[in-house]
């Protein structure tokens, strides 16, 4: 059996780690656009300020590829999938044959139509090479503007801040971190980050990068200008589909559409991770969920099915753990009720200044949680959301600062703590 994987991050590794134990003999080949062994992508922004170094970024080292007998091609871009001949064409003209193919090409940064982005000093920040390029220019940089206050934007701002750069985030929405947090949680982060000296401008956007060859400032929609010698575009990522699917017949919506076995519309071709659009458990629709644990999980399920097992993906949901300059939040599932009726929301501020907790229930089932600052044992809530556990009358107790399993029904403990799980 010849397994071919396009991509070399969480989903690809998840697939390898479920294929290899089940098929000792099969050939596994990885095509990686980036010239690195799998690395911890979420850490690249902290690499800018040397908080994390090369060795910290290793996700699976060279030994991993050798021990699992993976043929890995680094720095080679796939060009096209040809399902009829069962080959993938790479940019160097080579045809790589497959019996089972996994597309795990990840995401690609969205670049909004801003004038003047061809100037020097303009970056996106989604790859290790991006952060290396940013780092190389640091000695010349005093002021940076980050367009976008989402996850990547705030992490890029943090990295630059820690490197001694004066940073301003410009966010179009009323709040930063709007897809991760509700308004209350975002407000806590904004106050905290402003207190640290980070500039945050909301409800505003950059329309033009100014300067002569090199970026020297930005013009905002309001007409105001901000001086900067560095511009980071971090408005989000979208599935990287165009790299391979064009002309292949593989069905695409936002991402590559996959069924519960992570199969695409084309036989023996699977997709997983940020490029895939699979089942979302809470909204019960297909969604792209560009998050590390979801990518690994999808890759793992794809790998199991590629290796001949019959395993269904139970569906993913948003799960974020974000720390910015020492303040941490974990958010799981909905951050606001998706509709006005049928949901119950419990909230608590304090006891600490930045402590905030919010729970969203649909009937007796938890469907969303926000924890700011105090995040101890947050996974108990993730588990309840995933398993759709009936909480009964214990809802208020899940708000306790000391969240524990005593708050769960005794029957739950009986089931979970007396046998292997």
């Amino acid at each position, binding site marked *: 059996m010849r397994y071919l994987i396009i991509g070399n991050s*969480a989903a690809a590794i*998840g697939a390898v780690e479920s294929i290899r*134990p089940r098929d000792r003999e099969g050939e596994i080949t990885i095509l990686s656009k980036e010239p690195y062994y799998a690395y*911890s*992508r*979420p*850490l690249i922004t902290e690499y800018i300020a040397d908080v*994390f170094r090369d060795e*910290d970024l*290793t*996700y*699976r080292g060279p030994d991993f590829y050798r021990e699992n007998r993976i043929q890995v091609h680094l720095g080679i871009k796939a060009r096209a999938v040809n399902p009829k001949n069962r080959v993938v064409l790479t940019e160097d003209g080579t045809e790589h044959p497959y019996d089972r193919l996994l597309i795990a090409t990840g995401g690609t940064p969205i670049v909004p139509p801003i004038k003047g982005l061809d100037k020097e000093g303009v970056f996106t920040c989604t790859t290790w090479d991006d952060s290396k390029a940013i780092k190389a220019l640091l000695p010349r940089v005093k002021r940076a503007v980050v367009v976008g206050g989402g996850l990547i934007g705030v992490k890029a701002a943090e990295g630059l801040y820690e490197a001694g750069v004066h940073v301003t985030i410009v966010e179009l929405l009323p709040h930063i971190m709007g897809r991760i947090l509700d308004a209350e949680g975002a407000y806590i982060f904004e106050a905290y980050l402003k207190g640290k000296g980070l500039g945050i401008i909301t409800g505003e956007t950059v329309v033009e990068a100014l300067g002569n060859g090199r970026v020297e400032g930005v013009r905002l929609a309001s007409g105001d200008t901000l001086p900067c010698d560095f511009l980071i575009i971090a408005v989000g990522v979208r599935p990287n589909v165009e790299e391979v699917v064009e002309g292949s017949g593989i069905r695409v919506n936002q991402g590559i559409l996959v069924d519960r076995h992570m199969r695409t519309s084309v036989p023996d071709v699977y997709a997983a991770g940020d490029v895939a659009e699979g089942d979302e458990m809470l909204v019960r629709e297909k969604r792209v969920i560009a998050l*590390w*644990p979801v990518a*690994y*999980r999808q890759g*793992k399920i794809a790998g199991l099915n590629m290796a001949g097992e019959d395993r269904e993906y139970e569906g993913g949901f948003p*799960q*974020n*753990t974000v*720390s910015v300059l020492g303040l*941490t939040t*974990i958010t*799981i599932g909905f951050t606001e009720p998706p509709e006005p009726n049928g949901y119950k929301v419990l909230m608590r501020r304090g006891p600490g200044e930045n402590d905030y907790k919010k729970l969203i229930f649909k009937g007796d089932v938890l469907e969303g949680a926000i924890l700011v600052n105090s*995040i*101890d*044992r*947050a*996974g*108990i809530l*993730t*588990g*309840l959301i*995933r*398993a759709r556990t009936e909480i009964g009358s214990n809802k208020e107790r899940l708000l306790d600062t000391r*969240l*524990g*399993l*005593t708050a769960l029904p*005794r029957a739950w*403990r009986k089931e*979970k*703590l*007396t*046998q*292997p*799980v």
Partner: protein
Amino acid sequence: MKRVYPREEVCMGCKLCEVACIVEHSLSKDIIKAYKEERPRTLSRARVEEEGPVSFSIMCRHCIDPECLEACITGALYRVNGDGPVLVDPRRCVGCWMCVMACPYGSIELDSRNGRRVISKCDLCPDRRMPACVDACPNRALFYEER
């Protein structure tokens, strides 16, 4: 594999399991040194939960399909020999807390006391035949066995 199973019917919440865990994972493995000299003190990987008459000790379940492993962004969490204990390599842990978000049993401890963020969790006491918590329990409220 053998795992530790709590029995809340007979646990009286004495927390000797926590003491034994701290001593076993201290540098000296000596109770006085572990509590009085070593700073910061090792964290217990077992946690006694107590509410009214209900109490039990909970630690990593070493799940069949561990969520923490999937969430770990650095590869610091790993499974011994494919189906053994789930362990953490503290040198590779960067304290991103993704596993804290993932663990449905709340059995991963956060530690930021040494100026470095890192997790600690139950390792089933690799230097012992019987985990220290199980040995220390005066009421047989912890079992270490194959189920």
